[in-house]
């Protein structure tokens, strides 16, 4: 039986890698992938804590998150294609349309 802390550590590690990826990578595609890492870190936590508390709520929630992640990936990729068509780039630091 693997102790729950290990899972928490794994989740924290994955989450940190994902956050660093979101904050530092220029390519929007990579940022999207990093977001997937964050979501999966959360999933690991949910499943681990579900095991810990002997409740299936967390696992059910994890299924929702996976579904959500799929939808998010689809929308995100669509946005990236639309963005590329308009701006000829997928680099996050070249896109500052949010200003004004």
């Amino acid at each position, binding site marked *: 039986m693997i102790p729950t802390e290990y899972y928490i550590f794994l989740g924290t590690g994955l989450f940190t890698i994902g956050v660093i990826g979101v904050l530092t990578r220029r390519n929007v595609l990579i940022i999207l992938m990093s977001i997937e890492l964050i979501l999966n870190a959360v999933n690991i936590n949910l499943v681990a804590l579900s095991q810990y508390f002997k409740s299936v709520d967390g696992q059910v929630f994890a299924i929702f998150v996976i579904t959500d992640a799929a939808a998010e990936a689809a929308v995100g990729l669509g946005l990236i294609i639309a963005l590329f068509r308009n701006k000829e780039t997928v680099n996050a*630091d070249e896109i500052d349309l949010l200003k*004004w």
Partner: protein
Amino acid sequence: MLDYIWLIPVFPLLGAAIQLFFGRRSSNRAVSTVSVGLPGLSFLWAVGCFAQFLGLPESYHHVFLRPLYTWLPAGAFHLSNGSLGNLNVHVGMQLDPLSCVMMLVVTGVGFLIHVYSIGYMAHEGGYYRFFGYLNLFMFSMLVLVLADNYLMMFVGWEGVGLCSYLLIGFYFLRKSASDAGKKAFIVNRIGDAAFLLGVMLMVVTFGTLDFHLITKAAHSGQFPVGSGVITTICILLFIGATGKSAQIPLYVWLPDAMEGPTPVSALIHAATMVTAGVYMVARSNALYALSPTALALVAGIGAATAIWAASIGLVQNDIKRVLAYSTVSQLGYMFLACGVGAFGAGIFHLMTHAFFKALLFLGSGSVIHALSGEQDLRKMGALWHKIPTTAKTMLAGTLAISGAPFLSGFFSKDEILWQSFASPYGNKLLWVIGVGTAGMTAFYMFRLFFLTFAGNSRVPHEVEHHIHEAPSSMTVPLICLAVGAVGAGYVGWPKVLGGPNWFGKFLDPVYENPAMRPALEHTWNQEFGLMLFSVAVAFVGFFVAHRWYVKQPGIADRVAAAAGAAYSILLHKYYIDEIYDALFVNRVKDLGSAMAAFDLGVVDGGVNGVGWFTRLSARLSIIWDTWVIDGVVNALAFMVKLVSWPARIVQTGLVQNYAWFITLGVLFFMVYYLVHL
């Protein structure tokens, strides 16, 4: 037919509409078929209406009214005497003996003149325009004589004035013609203004404008004889009549109106339109009966105009101008008759005059036509055998106007002269003037006749080749009118010569006035004697003309030379045009120049000043705007920019920066809680 009496004016209106809208592309033949046919139809319809009118029972009181619709429902208002009136002006027709006579004269003589115009105008430009205007004139004149109230009469009155203007200025490329048209229009406007004032005064006095209601009010005894307001109305109406019917002081337009084509002179300026004033005075006889002052004025002006114009006519050299002054003079006769209360005699003369004066004008037109446009009597002569039909019909007209016994002019003129002598409103001076005018008339008419048709030819050689009798479209109307000029008087064959005076009896119901002074008693001998005397005077006129212009042609020039200044004054028409120019026309022009100067200096100056001031204030406003208003706004914006600087620099628009802030914020709070818990 009487129910459709409104068709009589509508036929020519239709013709006018067709010509003026579509005539330009039509052939002359099509134009004359429509525009002569429709007045002809009008004439036939008028004859039918007349026949039916004669058959009406007595209970109609000799007045047939045919209201068509309410034109101006003006509603209730206070009359000048304080009572409540209710004015409704109708468009309607009134047929009584007086309008019967006018209707038949206008349509009959008018139709003949239309026929004549086919030949006369054949080689002129604007054929369709001429006939369109002529038909429009017929319409207006028929509205004038068939109207049942003063306002509708005024519509016709203005309509004929317009057509007169259009037709006098028919050859509008010639300056003299367009000037003459303007003169006629403006002089008439003076009279028309007075007429309109009279109509307004009638509205507030009687509360109605219908002829039969006003006549009833005048007969009712509500207004005493000599009533001030009635006198004012009568005088205002008469001023209107002096304009339209060319009486002193407004007669000056008629001689100039001869610039129009000759059929126009015959129709408008001899037979019909200029008699509208006489008709209107006769129509208002119930009012004039209440005002001896106005009657005296009418008689005085009439007599003065008669002899004044006749004296000018003695020496004029333009064939149409002689006839024009003759017309003015004869119209004076008609007013003289109305002024002495003999309205019937005035209308009788109006009718006979329509025949012989239209005939004389058309005859002179035929002469002018034969001489390729020559109007100067000094360049005519010896035309008797060259244009025999014209000459014979002209002779009939000349005899009729001179008062040769048993021709139409004789009956009507003698009736007027007798009335001016014998009527309770007449006096001997009026009779003397009338007889003097009769002598002058005979003289100048025979002078015209002899200078044209007798003596030696003074026609230039190149013109002489082209002399030809007019086509039958011109001679047939001449013959018809000559028959009228000879025979039209028989309907009024006077009692003194054993006749029935059917015409007088027919018109009498129109002139039954309780306010009229009773006729004076005179013997048959007196009347017959005066008649003989006036015939003798006319014969003297003829005899002098014959002697001066046929037997010893040189004598006229010697008389003219001997008369010197008097002759010159007559030849220049008493310098009336010059005097009017100096007194009125040039004063009005001066006023116009002063107005123009005022306009340029003060009004324009004011406007320009306002413009300049606006520009100045606009410039100041620009300065204020740029420096003060814009300055404040810019300063405000600058302050906002300054204050917002810290907020602005974090707004990079880069999504990763925002993510950094979020992450750092979360980390900060985590650390904070870890430290404090």
